[in-house]
């Protein structure tokens, strides 16, 4: 269910607020010095699991691979009962139908990348068709990419319009807009791109495709959370956040949760408004959960790799 829409009264994106990199680094360093222990840690780890968009985006994806991944998403570590499932499975449009069937009845969402992911270098008709295909096959969520080339050459209207068009093609599916922050380079640009995406109708803003470095850093995610905060104050509409790529262990994931908690508060600390785009994070979280329970670390062999 989508709440945001394409807005008519938009600010001048050329006058986007400035972001001070040094100040951001200082603030994010503070989040990383929070001490999360015991009950708080266990609660946080379980939240992290429930916020994962378990992802496979390989050229060599097959139905077999996708089905096994879906099973993992629903049965993360059955040896330890009472664990949540992931939030969603994220795949290419061609695999949406397979995934949708595989997770039937579990409540897990299907997210599909689209718009000529990951480059976005394709004609508009192709991107819309890509999106509609995914939606028709049952995608609950669409993860689109923006045209970074157009953005960096200053054509903000183009980027706004393409997001609005994909939003329309999404229908009732929720739209995540991938900014590919690694290509935007500066935090000022990340802020600008975030604002464009939200005013154009994004339900989520997402850092990266996961195909290039750097992906989701604390600094970039923080900048986007601040953009979400200002947008909420200005319009009353919530937009979700998805850092993707680079969050491979529990420590980083918990730092991110601390950051969300202290920036946006409890309203965003659930998988309706916050997701981790990750593939290997889940097993590290499971390992930490087992360590909290039993007091020692098990070898990675005890956790299935799908």
């Amino acid at each position, binding site marked *: 269910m989508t709440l945001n829409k394409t807005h008519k009264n938009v600010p001048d994106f050329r006058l986007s607020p400035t972001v001070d990199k*040094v100040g951001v680094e200082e603030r994010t360093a503070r989040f990383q010095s929070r001490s999360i222990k015991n009950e708080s840690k266990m609660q946080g780890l379980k939240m992290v699991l429930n916020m994962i968009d378990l992802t496979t985006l390989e050229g060599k994806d097959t139905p077999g691979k996708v089905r096994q991944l879906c099973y993992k998403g629903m049965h993360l570590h059955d040896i330890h009962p009472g664990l949540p499932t992931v939030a969603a499975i994220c795949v290419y449009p061609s695999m949406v139908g397979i995934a949708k069937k595989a997770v039937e009845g579990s409540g897990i969402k299907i997210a599909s990348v689209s718009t000529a992911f990951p480059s976005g270098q394709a004609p508009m008709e192709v991107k819309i068709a890509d999106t509609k295909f995914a939606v028709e096959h049952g995608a609950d969520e669409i993860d689109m990419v923006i045209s970074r080339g157009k953005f960096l050459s200053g054509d903000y209207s183009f980027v706004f319009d393409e997001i609005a068009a994909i939003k329309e093609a999404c229908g009732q599916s929720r739209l995540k807009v991938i900014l590919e922050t690694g290509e935007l380079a500066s935090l000022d640009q990340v802020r600008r791109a975030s604002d464009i995406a939200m005013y154009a109708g994004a339900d989520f803003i997402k850092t990266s495709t996961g195909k290039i470095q750097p992906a989701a850093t604390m600094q970039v995610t923080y900048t986007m959370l601040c953009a979400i905060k200002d947008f909420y104050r200005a319009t*009353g509409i919530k937009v979700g956040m998805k850092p993707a790529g680079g969050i491979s262990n529990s420590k980083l994931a918990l730092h991110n949760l601390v950051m969300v908690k202290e920036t946006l508060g409890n309203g965003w600390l659930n998988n309706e408004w916050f997701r981790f785009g990750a593939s290997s994070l889940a097993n590290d979280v499971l390992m930490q959960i087992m360590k909290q329970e039993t007091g020692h670390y098990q070898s990675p062999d005890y956790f299935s790799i799908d």
Partner: protein
Amino acid sequence: MAKQQEQPIFDFSGGWDYSPSPESISHVKLKERYELFIDGKFVAPKSKKYFKTTNPATEQTLAEIALGNEPDVDLAVKAARRAYDNVWSKMPAKERGKYIFRIARLMQERARELTVVESLDAGKTIREARDIDIPLACNHFFYYAGWADKLDYAFPNRKVAPLGVAGQIIPWNFPLLMAAWKIAPALATGNTVVLKPAETTSLSALFLAEIIRDSGLPDGVVNIVTGFGETGAAIVHHPDVNKVAFTGSTSVGKLIQKAVAGTDKKLTLELGGKSANIIFDDAPIDQAVEGIVNGIFFNQGHVCCAGSRLFVQESVADEVIQKLKDRLETLYVGDPLDKNTDIGAINSKEQLETIRKYIEIGKNEGATMFESSCAIPEKGYFCKPVLFTDVAQSSRIAQEEIFGPVLTVQTFRTIDEVIQKANNSPYGLAAGVWTDKGSRIFNLTTKLRAGVIWANTYNKFDPASPFGGYKESGFGREGGMHGLGSYLKGI
């Protein structure tokens, strides 16, 4: 389920709470009673009297501290003089540097212990003590160790010499750090020291005394005499003290200046402040808000250079104030020993009463108070962070130093107006400037009458960076090459 249209407010209460994460203190052994440190030994005070030092977070007694007074000060100054005449002034500069370096290393090795002691005695958070106070204190010794044998380079073509015996009096807001700021440059320049820590926070200085003794520093080079105001006065008035260095309140600073008038004692004073933190409309607003918060709530606002007067350009005032209020709601006030606490205990009952008095004054003056809704512990001296809007230049809370977590907010329209308002104060210690425009920063730094000006940041310290004020914030500089001059003659 998400509502269709929500009130744009943020819920920072409850939800995923951080479990208590207290620092372990089992490795710290406090004695029941601490003596004076004179001539390389711990000795009982002539008065045979002791006073209690309390933990402001729990109101419990931590230990008894020796009450030193004039006879003890006399012994200490004599010891310092002997050490200066017979040993320290004759020692090659390079060797002096080695002692200072050794003290720095020992401080580093015992950093964890010092951190806990500082937090218990002063009420400051363990996180700040661990990440800021103790590392900076060590670094001051490391930094000045290097200057000991390079004074010719600091003052080329001059033949400089130490002054002799330095009497030093330090405050309670950064007990160990202030001791480092005083002792390190004094030793590096070849002086000997008699130091009096503040009466509410003597413990870390006494731990430092143990470190100094363990370092093998010759007897009498550093002496520590604990006590109250009278003990400090005895140091200031002692005829054989060549140099007085004081950090503390402006009112006591004035007394000291009167006391040394007519003598040939050299004096430096680092006093109070009511520093302006200035936000322009092109500032990175979220980072500026962080800077404001660091400026006034760091160390519970017990900072001489605290950014206690916020000036925000009127066109962005609503946004900044709203964000400030949001940010206040996410600050944790509580047990200083918990690693997640942001704001610890107020140093003493007296200081808490002073702060509360000013909050009342602010309310009576018609300013609008906003107070964080956080919980505070039942016991102990705690104060929630507060900001006042609708404050005028002539409000008392905008003029007088409160020395607590209380921020006053004023608006301005133009750069000339804010320069005038920022300078319109008897104090002149520090200022902060937040803008994206580099030329504006340079313009302001030449026009603001403040000894330290931070651009797009606040409360950043380094041993290599000189610190000190204009006007009633004092004179003389500590830190850097500038910090050497006030301990030397022949410049």
